[in-house]
């Protein structure tokens, strides 16, 4: 597991530039994730990695391709001071976990962290620190646990 750190206002054009929007496939999109601003990301990212960012992560377009690209890249959680709201909804609706926590200054890229989503706790094993966060509203937790909106609706229907 490694941490990828980003600053404020990471927009969807940075996450996945518009020229690659001709597919919706998560794995195919992942190859171009952050290709304009951080080309090494797509090369080195591994299953289980976590993004830690500043405020307004995912601002800009409604392209679900952005959270899909991160899911396809193997990112298991994005932690940010705040999220742009369409990105926030998209991520939850496709089952990409998000944590709203102001920890970008506390966590370094080489740190090892562990998440306890139910208790709302981020443990920094490297620095031996813990940071708490407000868990998502129950409804959104249910969406995530179901694996996203579609699976949630299906489960409701049966």
């Amino acid at each position: 597991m490694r941490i990828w750190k980003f600053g404020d206002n990471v927009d969807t054009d940075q996450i996945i530039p518009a020229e690659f929007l001709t597919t919706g496939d998560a794995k195919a999109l992942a190859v171009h994730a952050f290709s304009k601003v951080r080309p090494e990301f797509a090369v080195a990212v591994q299953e289980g990695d976590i993004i830690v960012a500043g405020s307004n992560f995912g601002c800009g377009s409604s392209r679900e391709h952005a959270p899909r690209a991160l899911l396809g890249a193997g990112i298991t959680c994005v932690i940010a001071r705040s999220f742009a709201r369409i990105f926030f909804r998209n991520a939850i609706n496709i089952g990409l976990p998000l944590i709203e926590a102001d920890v970008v200054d506390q966590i370094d890229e080489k740190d090892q962290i562990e998440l306890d989503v139910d208790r709302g706790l981020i443990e920094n094993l490297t620095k031996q620190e813990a940071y708490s966060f407000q868990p998502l509203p129950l409804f959104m937790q249910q969406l995530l646990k179901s694996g996203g909106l579609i699976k949630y609706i299906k489960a409701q229907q049966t």
Partner: protein
Amino acid sequence: MPTIAEKILGEKAGKGKAARAGEIVECDVDYVMVNDVTGVPAFEVFEAFGPEQSIKREKVVVVQDHYVPNKDVASAEQAKALRTYARRYKIAHYYEIGRGGICHQVMIEDGFAAPGRLIIGADSHTCSYGALGAFSTGVGSTEAAAAMATGTLWFKVPETQKFVVDGALQPFVMGKDIILHIIGDIGVSGSLYRAQEFYGTAIEQLSLSDRITIANMAIEAGAKTGIIPPDEKVFTFLKGRVRGEYSPVYADGHREDYEKIYEYDAAEIPPTVARPFVPENTAPARDLDVTIDQAYLGSCTNGRIEDLRVAAALLQAPRRVHDDVRMIIVPASDRVFQQAIAEGLIQTFLAAGAFVCGPTCGACLGGHMGVLAKGERCVSTTNRNFIGRMGHKDSEVYLANPAVVAASAITGRITDPNEL
């Protein structure tokens, strides 16, 4: 004592009363719009999910706009896939190139957007229809698919911020300057998770077109939607155009209903430019000394007939586009294009040395028809100036109103039209 957003969401949730900020509600949506970028993934999700007959076809609007005319084989395949889905599901509200335009302009011109409606679109600038008093917001493809299948979607009811702009606007100051000024003040996350409402004498005096520009850019401050209480201008526009009935919704207007109230004096807003790489990076046009390579007039933000008229008035002979500048003009819809031809505006543009083409998103998102090379600068009437938004990551986009773009095209550097 609710806000417009709380009233519309409460009504659409079938509560018989307003919803409260913070509540999570499931609402009936009036329309679901998808385009050629977001539509194919939406239909794919729908197919993996819904029984074919469940599609709420009368609510679905499909518009080809982002990469049409197709720029390459991949985008042609995408457009074809979308067309195939539209046929398979007998989508009547399907807009082919040449018979529509940019999705938001189509939604407004063709009577989908109306006061009191709840409209979602798989495009972030769906918030534009707030200019007509709708609660409209951008969603992702999965949500669009869910709404296609069920006709409903979940919403977290937002808190509302109120923006009051009073007074008379200075010459060449437009809706674009008002919204850039506000974003410059509150920042690109200033309205995160919030709804915006706009009031004041300056807003009342604006044309519907300028109000659409304002609502269009609500998302650039992070807002879920930006709503302007509908008035006679809206009702007149909708006559003979709107589909079905609608009922306007107004706030009760108590100060305590709003999370925050911002007040501005219209007279203090100059022609404003947002410099790279965030829309909050604003400055008066007259304070900038920036040479440009390209001037772009178009998009769902400022590609309407009113915008073209403003630009054409400035580009009258003997004025011409500067030798070192390419000016690209893209009407927002086929209707706007035809109207511009009828009014002689296109002739003016061509005579001035501008390039004009039919409606498409095209260069606005760095797709095609005006992509920027490394190091190039563009002054643009669009809504985003992110890194690489219109092309190379080392190109720059300066956001401005149509008058500033036209004036800059003439002088070759960013120019306040009052200086011409």
